[in-house]
């Protein structure tokens, strides 16, 4: 999108969130627990995106998701660093190149045990994430504006019949053609 100077865009400071420097296997390893831990934030953000269809209006929800992810992975590092490292290293070296969980049941069990003991966080059962879930939110539903479309005139036969095009040609010394 080519933004004009009147287009609302958030500033760099508004967009800044402390970055989460994690590799894909670590993200995949933490994914099911992250889904349970940041369930509310994730749903709120996805609902906002679906309703507003505009990332500029969902910036607060957006940052909440990233901050929650930061918080979750920092908490895991504090409590279960060794188990988590073992698990994601196992996923990283898993065959088939898909980082499938089925090859790392042993380390997964250790991480499950540690997280449930220290963080009271349980890996959701298989199928939970795929379910359709209802979400209660305080954000008001956006009112859809009716597009104000005037009647479209007949197509002109020549460029010179369109006053705007003639203006444009004058302004650009004929470069528009």
């Amino acid at each position, binding site marked *: *999108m*080519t*933004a*004009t*100077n*009147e*287009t*609302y*865009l*958030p*500033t*760099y400071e508004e*967009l800044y*969130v402390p970055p989460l420097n994690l590799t894909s296997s670590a*993200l*995949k390893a933490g*994914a*099911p627990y*992250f*889904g349970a831990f*940041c369930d509310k*934030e*994730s749903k709120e*953000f*996805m609902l906002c*995106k679906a309703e507003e*269809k*505009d*990332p*500029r209006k*969902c*910036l607060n929800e*957006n*940052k909440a*998701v*990233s901050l929650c*992810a930061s918080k979750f992975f920092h908490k895991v590092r504090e409590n279960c660093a060794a188990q988590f490292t073992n698990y994601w290293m196992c996923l990283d070296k898993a065959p088939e*190149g*898909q*980082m*499938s*969980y*089925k090859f790392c049941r042993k380390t997964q069990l250790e991480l499950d045990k540690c997280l449930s003991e220290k963080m009271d966080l349980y890996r959701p059962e*298989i*199928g*939970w*994430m*795929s379910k359709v879930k209802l979400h209660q939110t305080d954000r008001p539903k956006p009112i859809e504006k009716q*597009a*104000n*479309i005037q009647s479209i005139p007949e197509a002109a036969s020549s460029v010179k019949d369109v006053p*705007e095009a003639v203006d*444009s040609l004058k*302004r*650009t010394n004929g470069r*528009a053609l």
Partner: protein
Amino acid sequence: MSKPVNYKQDMPPPGGYASITYKKVPTWSPKPLRIVAALSLIIPVGIWDYNRRKHVALKSMIEDDEGRQALEPLMEAETDRLILWQMRRNRDEENELMKDVPGWVTGTWFGESLFKTNPNFDKWVQPTYYEAYSHTRARDMHQHMYTRNKIA
């Protein structure tokens, strides 16, 4: 003119040749009823095992899929913020680049907006790759577009 005969007549061994086994040798085979009984045991066990393996594989696939689903909001949030950041960068760059051109208005073609009903982009329009990478080199853009998922 008669030579003495000096050869030995080839004769059967004493006691005669052994008899040729031309009769069909009876082969062993299970009784038809036993075949039916064995198959009726093997086939259900095979079907049960196939279904069990299918279930395990499907469960594993769903688990992997759900891992990616859980990360979807995070990935989308990061992408959105990156896009907004890049758009602001592009706008600043365009203001700097076109400041000497008379009549140029940023984000338009000499004051003509891209969309007639949406001149200031109050309604969101997702930028394309070419818009997001408009101030980069083509080779960098193509590298990001086509080879960023290449392994090693």
